């Protein structure tokens, strides 16, 4: 039995259930009763549930992950995930440049680089160029944060 496959299959069934429950709670005006906004979601929900059941069945019969990669570096995955979570929380308070640097450094670290000086320098230049390019040339709004008034 493949545990990962079982979890993925159950996850799909759970999403299917969430869609079905949410849509069942909708109040549909009688004009739209026949082909209203519920029909399609229920179709997708059934499809997801079926797909989930098929994955569970395959996981049970050990035909799910026949060629899974040899080893998974979960630590690296966790580092990038942490970098993304930090980035979305830091973006508004400290601004684009420091937040992007944190994200960049987390990725380089996860990919096994230990040249912190080089990575930090590249991160700084990249973040500054992106910030100035996007705000000055393309007119997008990015949070300045700590660098407010400096750049």
């Amino acid at each position, binding site marked *: 039995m493949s545990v990962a*496959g079982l979890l*993925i299959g159950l996850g*799909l069934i759970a*999403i299917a259930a969430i*869609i079905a429950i*949410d*849509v069942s709670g*909708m109040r*549909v*005006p009688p004009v*739209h009763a026949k*082909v*209203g*906004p519920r*029909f*399609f*979601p229920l179709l*997708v929900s059934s*499809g*997801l549930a*079926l*797909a*989930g059941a*098929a*994955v569970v069945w395959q996981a049970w019969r050990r035909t*799910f*992950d026949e060629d*899974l*990669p*040899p*080893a*998974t*570096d*979960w630590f*690296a*995955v966790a580092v*990038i*995930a942490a*970098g*993304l979570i930090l*980035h*979305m929380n830091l*973006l*508004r308070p400290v601004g684009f440049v420091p937040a992007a640097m944190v*994200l*960049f450094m987390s*990725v*380089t*670290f*996860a*990919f*096994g*680089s230990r040249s912190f000086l080089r*990575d930090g320098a590249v*991160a700084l230049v990249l973040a500054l160029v992106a910030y100035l390019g*996007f705000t000055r040339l*393309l007119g*997008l*709004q*990015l949070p300045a944060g700590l660098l407010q008034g400096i750049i």
Partner: protein
Amino acid sequence: MEALGALMDGFATALTPINIMWSMVGVTLGTLIGILPGIGPALTIALLLPVTRTLDPTGAFIMFAGLYYGAMYGSSTTSILLNTPGESGSIVTALEGNQMARRGRGAAALATAAIGSFIAGTIGTLLLTFLAPQFVKLAILFGPAEYFALMVLAFMTVTTLLGASVTRGMTSLMIGLAFGLAGTDILTGQPRLVFGIPSMLRGIDTVVVAVGLFAVGEALYMASRRDLREAVILPIQGSLFMTREEWRRSWKPWLRGTAIGFPFGALPAGGTEIPTFLSYFMEKKLAKNPEEFGKGAIEGVAGPEAANNAAVAGVLVPLLALGLPTSATAAILLAAFEQYNLQPGPQLFSASGTLVWALIASLYIGNVMLLVLNLPLAGVWVRLLAIPQPLLYGGILVFSTLGVYSLSNSTFDLVLLFIVGIIGFLMRRHDFPVAPAIIGLILGPMAEAQFRRALTISQGDATVFFTHPISLALLLIALAVVVVPVILRRVLRRVPV
């Protein structure tokens, strides 16, 4: 011959300095992202969408199309010199191309790929020029029921033809459809799958899903695979001028690759991967010296590289004429049309004829630019491969989060990006194809709208889908696409080998 006149007007628009510049930007950027592993045309166009919102649509589409063509040229370089494909359309190129590079014939491999891409791209664009107006004539006969049936057919072909199994393809499609459901219902204005979050009323943006699946999912996956981190870049050896022998062995595979690539691109079968595999096996079958395959046979590079460029031209036929995307990149291009309130299909050719024909004309120009860009300058592009992997993926994630945030200056989109990224990682790790999810996301809401429109016209009578001949035929083909492979497998299993 009205197409010829329209094309000439198209050239007049495409050859203005500003549009030549957009074409140049597109093909250069396309070559760049084609060469860099981990970043492809679908992701790049998705990231460019928020930036190009205020741009003139003609210029933007000239750039996008150049980018799509350019990615196919660039990706062969990575396959040949690094043995990892730059894009999925160049997976088979690595088989023979890398062997050629190992044996000191890397330059010849690059040359046959670039020239083959040019020939296939140009023939493909010619076919597009004359076939698209014919498709438009067909599209005029289509009502909501026919469009819905066409979309069902697209769903069935992408799920059965892409990926390891029908279960996995179907799962991916359903995930994409589910993403497309969220937001305000178009016909009744009611919130659906919003979970009380105001930001969800807008729905989940295509860009968020595409970037999450392609960039974040891919980065997480590559980080998780330590064994994929080290790759050897081979130097370009030999002469870029192919020998007479190499020309003789290349020209037939170029033409055969084009003949396979174009129709497969135009069919709703998911773009460039399948025709390249078919072309490779065909060349292997037809070769006078099949024992050379696996050791650097030039036919195995020439055929598939022509096939993937012809497929890109093929993809544009149903996209422009019917509004039907047959690959992930085409699906993103369809989202780009929506951003400019343009509806691909007959109306596009009549109302925005200038745009369409300028776009098609720019493809001829782009192909010439790409040949120049890729043949003599191959050595310059190769330096890109020296970018260390950690810095490459660091950069990809910085620009991905930047692009997603700038959609509507919302950190909630970054939360969604994270969730989609985790899903993308699991899909990559467990071998679920990503393209059906992208196509489901974009076609799903359209399919629902056409479905409900058809039933409103018929006053709730569901038989409309079976009484209209075109719709019935499309649905029967869709059924056959799912059922026939299953039956074939059963029958083949019974025959003792």
